[in-house]
């Protein structure tokens, strides 16, 4: 039962990642693509937590922590480039 629920949620989150990819392919300007990348990073954190539940290993949660703490930095770098900050 619980496995089925987790699988369904994983499928929904994968659909979210695919939608972000669509925005990345379609987005006419670079800021659109950067926003798509950042959303994909955030959604990925949720996916990793779900997968840690699915595999039943609590040590995997550290990877999700790294994602949550670090992945915004790439977007910050791109944003600072676009406002000529670096």
């Amino acid at each position, binding site marked *: 039962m619980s496995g089925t629920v987790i699988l369904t949620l994983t499928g929904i989150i994968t659909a979210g990642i695919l939608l972000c990819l669509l925005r990345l392919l379609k987005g006419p300007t670079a800021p659109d693509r950067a926003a798509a990348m950042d959303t994909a990073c955030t959604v990925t954190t949720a996916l990793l937590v779900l997968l840690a539940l699915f595999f039943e290993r609590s040590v995997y949660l550290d990877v999700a922590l790294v994602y949550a703490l670090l992945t915004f930095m790439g977007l910050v770098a791109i944003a*600072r480039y676009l406002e000529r900050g670096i």
Partner: protein
Amino acid sequence: MIIIVSLLVLAMLTAAVAALIYRDLLSAVIASCLVSLLASILFFFLQAPDVAMAEASIGAALVTAIFVIAIRRTKRYEE
């Protein structure tokens, strides 16, 4: 589960092709960052959390920032 993995692999390859065709180097860097992100999820599926952590901490933050700094020092558009 295998369908989800196949979709993620497809998305990763699509992002890599996007990095190939964009003339705007900034967009190509964003696409390659997405490649590294999806590769990290696949490492997680392959039961390699150490490698997924290394790929996440390096591919998502450091590599993008280094590329952006280099683009700032040179030129943004490929002619």
